[in-house]
């Protein structure tokens, strides 16, 4: 191809300039790949952690909107306003929880665990720490949560085999100063008090859980909270995580209980990711844009230097399309070379970042000792495509100018 051979000669003659523009594109693409791997790695890890530790759906003993007063129901659009109405005292808890659990367990790919969650003051020696006590059924719980995997000491089974056993979050245990086998006291808002023996420690990686939650048998918590047979949280785990939101809405529509999918429960963090991504992509986009300007600059320079040659090619019978092709090809070559080199830069960056080790004390998630990097193909493809497209566009502008040059003016100027 004639246009290609001319383009290659032009670039070959200006090796240094070409190299600088290729490096510009390569750095842009490389950083895009590296930073994307870093951000996506962290976000994916975080989401996986959340999905792993927390249930996919939680049914709570609450309503999303307060129930209407009988008067408001009777006179929906009435002119009568009833004041000073006292809300009806309701017994908190999910009514007919067992029936609901049975119904949900009949669905395919769904694991269900009931629980009673409530606050309690844990006391060990002179230390008092408030914690959330989760009453669980170990047999069901192990199918819903990952507590068993995250246990650093003891076994989930010990809750059953030991009288008044309790499993503490690792941070909670530290705050109490209690270890395995120690006996701690617990006082609930109901006034009931029980003694528990620490039979296990759990480290989920999520600070809120590790520092503030403890697990006991469901029956024990019902006694502690003085709420016999009450279940106030049903936790659900799905085989297909993406169905969580849909199923949550269905349950809530059918039964009225506030039902949160993991997405809803972590909406604040997930929306933070959206902002984080926006920042990241605009920074990386700016890098690529600067690289594109580099290409524009080199092709502009070449066009300027080559004005005479362009006139000659036209006098030899080359068309405007031929000229346009030559310079656009030059841009695309720079962009493509930059994309390939950029992939290598990105690869090196990921390798380098993977070597970095650091300790991170107390964040929202447990320190991982280093960066978590996502290995995905799409940043390479996206970065490459962007580089080639941006380069083609950056080259097209001066190329069009080149194509429209009037040969007579150039020849006349030179003569």
């Amino acid at each position, binding site marked *: 191809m*004639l246009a290609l051979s*001319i383009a290659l*000669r*032009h670039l*070959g*003659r200006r090796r240094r300039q070409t190299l600088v523009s290729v490096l510009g594109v390569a750095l842009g693409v490389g950083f895009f790949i590296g930073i994307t791997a870093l951000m996506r790695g962290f976000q994916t890890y975080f989401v996986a952690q959340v999905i792993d530790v927390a249930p996919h759906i939680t049914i709570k003993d609450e309503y999303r909107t307060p129930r209407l007063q009988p008067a408001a129901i009777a006179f929906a659009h009435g002119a009568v306003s009833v004041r000073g109405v006292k809300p009806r005292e309701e017994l908190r808890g999910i009514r007919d929880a067992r029936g609901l659990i049975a119904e949900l367990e009949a669905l395919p790919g769904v694991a269900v665990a009931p629980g009673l969650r409530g606050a309690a003051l844990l006391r060990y020696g002179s230390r008092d720490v408030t914690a959330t006590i989760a009453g669980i059924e170990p047999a069901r719980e192990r199918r819903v949560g990952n507590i068993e995997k995250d246990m650093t000491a003891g076994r989930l089974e010990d809750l059953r085999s030991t009288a008044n056993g309790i499993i503490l979050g690792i941070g909670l245990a530290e705050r109490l100063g209690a270890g395995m086998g120690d006996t701690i006291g617990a006082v609930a808002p109901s006034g009931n008090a029980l003694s528990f023996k620490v039979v296990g420690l759990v480290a989920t990686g999520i600070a809120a859980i590790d520092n503030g939650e403890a697990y006991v048998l469901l029956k024990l918590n019902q006694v502690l909270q003085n709420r016999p047979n009450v279940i106030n949280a049903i936790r659900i785990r799905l085989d297909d995580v993406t169905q969580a939101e849909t199923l949550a809405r269905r349950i809530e529509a059918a039964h009225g209980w506030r039902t949160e999918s993991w997405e809803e429960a972590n909406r604040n963090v997930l929306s933070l990711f959206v902002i984080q991504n926006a920042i990241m992509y605009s920074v990386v986009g700016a890098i690529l844009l600067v690289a594109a300007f580099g290409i524009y600059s080199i092709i502009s320079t070449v066009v300027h230097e080559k004005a*005479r*040659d362009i*006139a*000659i*090619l*036209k*006098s*030899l*019978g*080359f*068309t*405007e*399309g*031929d000229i346009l092709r030559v310079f656009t090809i030059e841009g695309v070559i720079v962009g493509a070379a930059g994309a390939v080199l950029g992939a290598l830069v990105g690869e090196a960056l990921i390798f380098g970042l993977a070597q970095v080790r650091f300790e991170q004390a107390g964040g929202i998630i447990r320190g991982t000792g280093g960066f978590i990097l996502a290995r995905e193909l799409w940043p390479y493809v996206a970065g490459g495509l962007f580089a080639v497209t941006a380069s083609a566009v950056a080259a097209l502008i001066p190329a069009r100018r080149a194509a429209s040059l*009037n*040969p*007579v003016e150039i*020849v*006349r100027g*030179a*003569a």
Partner: protein
Amino acid sequence: MTPLVEARGVTRTLPGPVPVTLVREIDLGIGAGEFVAVTGPSGSGKSSLLYLLGLLDRPTEGHVLIEGEDTAGLSASALARIRRARLGFVFQFHFLLPEFTALENLLLPMRRLGGDDGALRARAEALLERLGLGDAMAKLPDQLSGGMRQRVAVARALANDPVLVLADEPTGNLDSRNAASMFDLFESLVAEHGRSIVVVTHDPGLAARARRQVRLMDGRIVEDTGAVAA
């Protein structure tokens, strides 16, 4: 006989706050096998006329006909097609592409016109040999002397075997010996191959070697020694 190229009432004006008329009301026909020298003082419109005849520029008024065909309505790419198949240009400066060897410079217009690459290469080599440039083939333009570069430029103008060669002060940058040999070459091209050549020059001695002289003054033809076709 239809002239190869013919200007009919051609006027070219550069637009601007003060419009400049380069050539006005030119009527000129150039037939096959003619060797025409266009002379005149600087700014008389010699080069402008040449560009108009070579379809590098379009007239403001009037028509340029190639072998009887009016070019006024043709698109830019149609004009380019005529240039690459029928016309050859030589300029004052050699205007070789510096990135390409002498042979490759010849091959550019040939490849653009198309054909079997081996055959094109053989033809280009033969052409360079004939012009005494056998040793220059693989050299880049800046490795050649001024005279040789200009000969390569002539060879390139001849690459697609044009019917008409248009030369704009081709000897302007050559010493008298090289200039004379350039004109020898033109004479032989006309004599042996029946091509037409139009040379713009302000060297009266060289102009005298052409069989027909056209003299311009202020954009008008003031003298034409042999209007063959009319």
